[in-house]
């Protein structure tokens, strides 16, 4: 399996994603600079977190015009697997690969702490290693994670089972206590209609080694490795 992690000016979780894929999962992983136009032939493209272009104007608004994003769009159009974490999720929304937008947290503050997210569907390339309904403890670190979309879009996301992660309490219950940023429908992560592009605000790569306190994020990378192995065979 081969993975690429796209680095934009201002990305700051690129190294973390590379480390997890390379060192923890043993995946052949390399960085790709945002100016490049060719992704090569990877099995997985990761848009990492950070502050691409300082998040000036709006988070992800400038990064989406980087040359590599055109290549990512073509790759996703062919069914390639794309994972956008935090700023990566914001870029995917700005680029139109995922619906909706991420606005400032309702607290108007940057929020950095562990949250609980419930796996709403295990029926994706990103979540098969989890149990449906499993509650994960994963850190967030963002100022703009308040997901919003028009009512019709939200309805469609729900109806099609495309809300993949939802903020909940530790016990898996929805409600005020679990949602850290005011996201519509407590949405923490969504997938596109074809099921190959996922964006989420929490950082699974920060919860993939015991020494860091949680391994709940590891399941996502395990799911992806298993999926790509199957896809290669097929």
């Amino acid at each position, binding site marked *: 399996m081969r993975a690429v992690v796209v680095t934009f000016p201002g990305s700051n979780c690129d190294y973390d994603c590379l480390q997890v894929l390379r060192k923890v999962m043993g995946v052949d992983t390399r960085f790709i600079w945002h100016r490049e136009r060719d992704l090569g032939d990877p099995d997985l493209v990761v848009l990492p977190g950070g502050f691409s272009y300082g998040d000036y104007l709006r988070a992800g608004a400038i990064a989406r015009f980087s040359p590599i994003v055109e290549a990512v769009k073509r790759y996703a159009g062919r069914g390639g697997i794309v994972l956008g974490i935090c700023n990566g999720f914001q870029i995917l*929304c700005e680029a139109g690969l995922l619906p909706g937008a991420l606005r400032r947290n309702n607290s*108007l503050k940057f929020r950095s702490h562990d949250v609980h997210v419930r796996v709403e569907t295990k029926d994706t390339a990103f979540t098969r290693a989890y149990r449906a309904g499993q509650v994960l403890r994963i850190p967030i670190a963002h100022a703009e994670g*308040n997901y919003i979309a*028009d009512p019709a879009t939200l309805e469609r996301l729900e109806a099609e089972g495309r809300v993949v992660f939802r903020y909940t309490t530790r016990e898996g219950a929805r409600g005020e206590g679990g949602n850290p940023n005011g996201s519509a429908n407590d949405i923490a992560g969504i997938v596109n209609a074809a099921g190959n592009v996922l964006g989420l605000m929490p950082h699974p790569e920060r919860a993939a080694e015991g020494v860091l306190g949680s391994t709940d994020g590891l399941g996502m990378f395990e799911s992806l490795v298993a999926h790509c192995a199957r896809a290669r065979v097929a």
Partner: protein
Amino acid sequence: MSAYAIEIRVTPRRGLLDPQGKAIQHALDSLGFAGVGEVRAGKLLVIELDADSPDEAAARATRMCEKLLANPVTEDFAIEVGRNAGQPEAAT
């Protein structure tokens, strides 16, 4: 060609909750400013643009907004084109 000073106001889309505006409204209220209604916080962009006519300038600014400066999901924009009197004809 003339130089135009274009002012673009980007505001949170009407009807959407604007947490920043709400916080400001609350702060004004608690500072004793009576009669403060809804507050909406957006941004103002001032762009110098060379164009043949005000209409052309406005049209180009609109495209800028649609493509980059405003997010159609969450934001509205308004454009005002003014002649920048201090600026001579643009030299190339």
